[in-house]
Structures are given as C-alpha cells and as structure tokens.
C-alpha cells in the first residue's frame, strides 16, 4: 500500500526532524512542554485525583521512589486547604541549563489564588518534576492563610 508507506515515511521523517530540534538545537519550550506547562499538567492531574497518571510527570529517580499513595497523602492538605479547585494555570518559569523552577497558581473556591512552585530538570529532552516539596509549601501557605482568616 503506497499511502501507508508514505504516511509512515512522513511520520519517521518528522520525528527525526523534531529530535534534531530538541536534542541538536536544545529546544526546551517550543516542541516540548515548558516547565510551567509541565507543572500545570501535574497539578491538574492531581486535582482530578489521577495519582497514578501524575507519576509520569516525575523524573525517573522520583518516580521509582514515590507511590500514587504518597502523592495522594501530599496532595490532601493542599486540596483540603484550597477547597474546590476551579482552574490551574502555569504562570512562570526560570530555566538554567537542564534545571528549572516553575510556578503555577491554583484558582480555588475557598482560598482564592494559591501559588505552587516546583523544581524540574530536563530528562531525555522532556521537563520532569525533580522535587515534591512545592506541594508541602503550598499546603503550609494554605493553612496559614486559613488561620489568618480567608483567601486573597
């Protein structure tokens, strides 16, 4: 089948081209999700409680150590402090070589906007989350905000 061969050839050719752009030209934000978009996806996945799927956002080292149950445990205080999460937006990122810090904000029903900051690093051309302490910081901020008497 000529058409089949042609489609497969185009797919292979473009994959090679994209690999060249990502690995050869060091593209880190155009043809791969940027750090801010990565944590946005991660937080959205957590907000719908797909902890198993959220593991795919973690780097290989973290993914091998963390179980979905741990993600649930770390997310719970954020969820409880924030109430219903209306939206998650990746907002900013600072890239230094193969490392990045990115920030997203949770738009919540009870606590207004809640910022979350996370560290990432580049793994096989894709940004992956390197540490989960950003979730704990966000939870702590929400607790303090709750004790102070409401959202911003």
């Amino acid at each position, binding site marked *: *089948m000529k*058409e*089949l061969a*042609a*489609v*497969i050839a*185009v*797919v292979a050719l*473009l*994959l090679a081209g*994209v*690999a060249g752009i*990502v690995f050869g030209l060091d593209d880190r*934000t*155009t*043809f*791969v*999700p*940027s750090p*801010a*978009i990565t944590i946005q*996806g991660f937080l959205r996945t957590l907000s719908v409680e797909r902890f198993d799927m959220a593991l795919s956002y973690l780097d290989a080292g973290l993914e091998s150590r963390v179980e979905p149950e741990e993600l649930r445990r770390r997310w719970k205080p954020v969820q409880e402090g924030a109430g219903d999460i209306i939206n998650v937006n990746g907002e900013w990122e600072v890239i230094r070589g193969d490392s990045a810090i990115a920030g997203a904000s949770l738009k919540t029903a009870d606590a207004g906007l809640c910022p979350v900051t996370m560290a990432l690093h580049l793994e096989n*051309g*894709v940004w992956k989350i390197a540490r989960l302490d950003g979730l704990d910081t966000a939870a702590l901020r929400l607790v303090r905000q709750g004790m102070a008497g409401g959202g911003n």
Partner: protein
Amino acid sequence: MELHKIAIRVLFAYIFLLLIIRLSGKRTVAEGNTFDFVLALILGDTVDNAMWGEVPIAQFIVAAGTLVVIQLLVSAASYRNETLQAILEGSPTTFLRKGRLVREGLRRERISRRESEEMMRLGGGMEPDEWASVEAARLEHSGEPSVILRPWARPAQGQDRDALRRRRGT
C-alpha cells in the same frame, strides 16, 4: 506563554496534518462513516494538546500518525471484506417506500415525521404531496438522505425516446 511559540506549533501541526491527510487519500477527510468521524474528532483533540504545548510534539506526531495508519488499514480491510464494511459503516436505512413512511426505519434511526420531511427536502427537494413519486428514500451511512424516484417519475432518458420511437414505428 510566548505567542510566537504557539504560532510555530500551530504551523508545524498544520503542515504535518496536511501532509499525512493528503498522502492517506481523499477518504480520510470524507467523514463518510462513523470511523472517519471518530478519526476527525480525535485528531482535533490531539492538535489542541499540541497547539498549547501540553504534550511533546513527538507524541503528537506518533498519535496522529498512528490514527491515520489505523484508518488506512481499516479502510483497506473493509474494502476487501463486505461484512467488516457493514459492521464499520452500517447499512442504509429505508425510511420511505413507495410514497409512504416506513415506521420501522424511522424508529431505528429515531427520525421524527418532521425530520423525515426535512430529509426529503434535502435529498430530493420534495414536499409531502410529491412523495407518491418516490420509490424509496434512504438514510445513507454518511447520514445523508438519498431519494430514488419511481420509474414513471424519473426524467426522460435517451432510451425512453428510443422506446417511444419504436412504439410509434418511426
């Protein structure tokens, strides 16, 4: 989000889809059957993710390419096997025969009387008082109505002229 990066991704996705859809033949964009419709729907969703940079472009290429390859294989298989074609594309439903609505067909496709009137207008440009000239009206697997006229209502053809001449002995 940097706007020029969105533009680059959109341009890339557009060129890629144009290439593979063009190479896979006209059937891919015909939306002629359920599978074509599903393909268009899923492709639309994958483009959306790629456009906003939510998935790596490589994943988008593999997902869209695989979908088009599956579509090509399925359409090739259904071309060779009529049973498979009937399963994938369904069969036409007759909803009007010899000028009368077929209740069974209407029920099967959940077509109201008003909708059947609309379909007859779309398929044959006919109002209910003209339905007597219809041999059969069908809802094709593409979702479009088709109308077959009774022999006496069909426009005259060359063979009719010949038959008339023979009858007259001219």
